[in-house]
């Protein structure tokens, strides 16, 4: 079963570099909307297993990564392709919206 990947300062750069398409959800435990999309992120991790990497960054535990991308609002979801930041979504959205972005990047 596919599961999302937990990213932090130690494994972030490597994961982005070594995978074709990566979606990263920046969240924190106290953030209501983040919790509301948590089940969606888990489902996406399963749906896209083997095609794209679905990852999460706990901004409380990994503030350096959040700082690196200037995250000022959560949830923010960043999309990377071939190691480059190509798209982002700020605020909670339905599953289909995230899936559409992933599909577009996977071509």
């Amino acid at each position: 079963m596919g599961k999302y990947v937990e990213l932090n300062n130690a494994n972030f750069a490597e994961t982005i570099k070594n995978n074709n398409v990566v979606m990263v959800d920046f969240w924190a435990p106290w953030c209501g909307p983040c919790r509301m999309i948590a089940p969606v992120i888990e489902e996406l991790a399963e749906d896209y297993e083997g095609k794209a990497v679905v990852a999460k960054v706990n901004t409380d535990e990994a503030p350096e990564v959040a700082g690196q991308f200037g995250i000022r609002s959560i949830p923010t979801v960043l999309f990377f392709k071939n190691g480059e930041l190509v798209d982002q979504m700020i605020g909670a959205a339905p599953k289909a919206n995230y899936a559409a972005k992933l599909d577009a990047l996977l071509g």
Partner: protein
Amino acid sequence: MKDLVIIGGGPAGLSAGLYASRMGIDTTIYEKLSPGGQITLSSEIENYPGVCDVKSGLELMQCWPKQAEKFGCKIESSEVKSIKKVENYFEIELFDKTIQSLSVIVATGASPKRAGFENEEEFIGKGISTCAVCDGFFYRNQEVAVVGGGDTALEEALYLSGIASKVYLIHRRDKFRASPATVKRVLENDKIEILYNSKVKKVYGEQFVDGIIISQENREIDLKVPGVFVFVGNSKNTEVLKNEDGFICEMCDDGSVMVDLNMKTSLAGLYAVGDIRKDAAKQVVCAAADGAVAALQAVKYVDEIKNS
């Protein structure tokens, strides 16, 4: 054919789901994210009767879905696109399929409104926020601005005063319309500086917010703050009630849904509850009560159709 479909999983929808399923009708809630609703943006709730500990919105809503599911209510994560009445039932278009139900309770709530200043949209998530409990953390020991003068604005200014080094509260009038107890706490808080009779003209910055320009009667103030929290009311999420010919039920001039005291809309079998309905008090307890009222009505309505 389902008995009842509830659209939206905030306090109103979850309470309707609890009541209807407990009374034995087949009930499904469709929530586009996951249950909880707008209240999960709030840092502190101290006025939900019977809950004496001060809780965050997230904590307050924690067990509501489970309580509804205990009685058989189904909660699905799906966005509803439209509703159409056909003969004596409804067709509900979801993202990936169309389902049928004898009755519908619309509990889609509201979303934070924009204040309408220059560059506001471009800087959302880049310094502009509508959720202090989510984003306050990014401004630890920095100065922030809060825009608004109602209960939410003042409560969240107080919350932010515990994190930020200073909070500028920007209000367009000379008096607050928030409850007196909250106003008193704000006035006594020495980390909050109030700018009355002030309007935000624009926000500026390169990639992120660097500051805002505030206009007062005779002058403009340049306030260098990296964070701006906007709490200027809500707009109602009524898109689901709209189709190509307009709204499927009667609406009020302010954009809310016309209902009677039983939460009935002008269309038989369709109910509207919580923040979207006429004269909504915008309180969790009121939304929950609306949900219960509508559920009781829907159960009666479904029984009548089945027995006719």
